[in-house]
């Protein structure tokens, strides 16, 4: 068996490509995406506009680059919120397993899980108004139970091991054991889950922007680019295909990376492969 599988390479390469593009857009884009040039609308690909222009004369390549930034920022912060709140909750539930706090945490998670996430996200942005921040919050909240469950499940397995008993005879409390022993040993599970949630976050952001509840114009976003291209899909299909393809490749890359990392990091699968 190959030690570092091809799928993982492709995933890492695709994810890195989008990440670098997004970072690059912070300092340089080919054209200003806020300037509308109606005279130069719907131009085909040329040397000045490598991917052509949209119905307002904005450069598509620049739009995609800044859109990548929006998507990645929203998904990243949303995953961060999910991990920062979900992981401690899961660790606490595992440390207090079987007790009332454990039940409250996990049943609360079930409650959040039971809601259709996108509908709630629409509700939140509809109430508080569409903005990137609200989109982040809406996606982030639904990441909390995912990380809480993964953390609790992994932690329960680690809690049964002898070295935890040894740490307890060393007088260490639950918080300290969770931080020193449990967390490093479930880190691989969390990393894999984070890549998967990250790709789901990208999709969710695109979906919210598509229905007009994500980042507000003029900030470009892949989802809104799709929505705006919808009416011209027969005359100018590239306008829809390009952001759609970007979303697809980014999500594909993250999923491949997540799967590959799981194969690489999960000791059970690793042992089976050898």
């Amino acid at each position, binding site marked *: 068996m190959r030690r570092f599988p091809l799928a993982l390479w492709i995933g890492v390469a695709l994810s890195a490509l989008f990440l670098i593009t997004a970072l690059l857009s912070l300092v340089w884009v080919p054209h200003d995406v806020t300037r509308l040039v109606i005279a130069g609308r719907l131009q085909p690909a040329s040397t000045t506009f490598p991917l052509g222009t949209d119905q307002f004369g904005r450069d598509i390549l620049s739009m995609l680059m800044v859109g990548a930034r929006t998507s990645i920022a929203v998904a990243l912060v949303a995953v961060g919120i999910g991990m920062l709140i979900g992981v401690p909750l899961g660790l606490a539930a595992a440390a207090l397993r079987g007790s009332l706090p454990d039940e409250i945490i996990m049943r609360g998670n079930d409650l959040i899980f039971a809601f259709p996430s996108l509908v709630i996200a629409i509700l939140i942005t509809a109430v508080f108004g569409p903005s990137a921040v609200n989109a982040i919050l809406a996606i982030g909240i639904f990441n909390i139970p995912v990380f809480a469950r993964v953390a609790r499940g992994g932690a329960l397995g680690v809690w049964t091991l002898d070295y935890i008993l040894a740490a307890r005879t060393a007088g260490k409390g639950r918080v300290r054991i969770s931080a020193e022993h449990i967390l490093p*040993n479930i880190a691989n599970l969390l990393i894999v889950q984070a890549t998967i949630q990250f790709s789901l976050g990208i999709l969710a952001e695109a979906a919210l922007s598509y229905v007009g509840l994500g980042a507000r114009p003029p900030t470009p976003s892949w989802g809104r680019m799709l929505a705006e291209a919808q009416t011209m899909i027969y005359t100018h299909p590239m306008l829809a295909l390009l952001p759609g393809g970007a979303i697809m490749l980014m999500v594909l890359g993250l999923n491949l990376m997540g799967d590959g990392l799981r194969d690489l990091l999960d000791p059970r699968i690793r042992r089976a492969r050898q």
Partner: protein
Amino acid sequence: MIHVKNLSLSIHGTPILDQVSLTIAEGQIFGLVGESGSGKSMTALALMQLLPTGAVATGHARLDGTDLLALPEAGMRALRGASLAMIFQEPMTALNPVQPIGVQVAETLLIHGAADRGKARKIARDCLHRVGLGHIGTEVYPHALSGGQRQRVCIAAAIALRPRLLIADEPTTALDVTTQAQILDLLKALVTEQNMALLLITHDLAVVTDTASRIAVMHQGRIVEQGKTTDILRRHRHPYTRTLCKASAHRPERQNHAAPEPLLQLSKVVRLYPGRRQGFFRRGTPLRAVDGVSFDLHYGESLGLVGESGCGKSTLARAILGLEPIQGGRITAFGKPVSPQLPNALRARIQVVFQDPYGSFNPRWRVEHLVAEPLHLMANPPVGRARRDHVAEALKAVHLTPKDMDKYPHEFSGGQRQRIAIARALMTHPDIIVLDEAVSALDVSVRARILDLLATLQTRMKLGYLFISHDLTVVRAITDRVLVMQAGRIVEHGATRAVFSSPRHACTRTLLQAAPGLRAM
């Protein structure tokens, strides 16, 4: 019938087996003895052609004239389960948890097309009956069975097609002594009845003494000696056999230094576990895991605690360590009560060494960090340079070098890890060390060295040991007094020698009779 000649094996170029030759006749039990890593299991896997990828085997392994090594995979599949069957060490994981046992026994018959569904089910029932599980039926799931019963199911599945050769790889290592004796008796009876050959692989010389008629001793991929069991064990022609025999009967030199004042006192200790849920709110009667246990442990004394698995030994150990609350009686150490609220200064004086040298360390920590963990209990733990010196000293006490500090636990062998565990227990200069099956997972020669080490440390530091084990040979070798536990109660106690020579309680007698080869050695 089985004829192995010059079997050599290498995995990715690393030689594993070197010119292994052995012959097993019909109706014969052949013992293959050796320490971990000696190649015993690889010999068995080579016969089954279940070798890991990258393995290259040369030589011959003939079963009734067919060379197993030359057979294609399809031919091997027809033999596996039918002519060649195998049972493994871990009956807990060898069965599929989501299938009833009857189906699993019948599976081999169906795969080989030996019977239709109805007939297979009937044969499965007969096989289960034969291995002594007739009373529990075929519809039971593995989780409802004990370790011994699961091993019986594995045996039933293995004998369903009346194999010519049964390979048993450490079949009783995971079981306690009484169950071990029953399983060995069952295997012996089956061999005679079905006239099959049994290849019994074990690290435990005592297991083969009573069971096998011929044995081979393996060392570093080579058979160093083989012949009649009695000859091998009596003559010890080969130096390695001699070392092995000596190590398994090893008794460290030690005197009884027990001081009169008690270190640890238990009086009528009770530990209850909540009963099974009955309905939504009601619970059944609580389980009395430890039921009125009283004893004293003195400075410099070794106290043995023996009993079958599930008798409450480990539960009691956790209560003594102040990890779990007790529901009755009292535990006092150094005159102070022991409970989960035990102050750190006292906790530092009671330390523990666990059975599993693999599970007792956080795999992501270096040895320095691991060994230093109990320093957390001290009011002013040393840091930096001082901490490293402290760890180095503890490592030296267990005959490891200070250089080992920067390694990770996976870089050590089982015996070395157990030394690290002892070093960790010594860090806070405790008075009591609880050794929970601390040497049970080790090879005999490693075990002998660890026992010596424990004896030396005891003399030097006046340690009180509570030695929890199901292995009576070890308990006899290292303890002054012994407690026998059954179903949460102490049923017999006294000086080790007296209890072992004239046991009074039925439970002690069963344990002693079941212990293989204890009298012989």
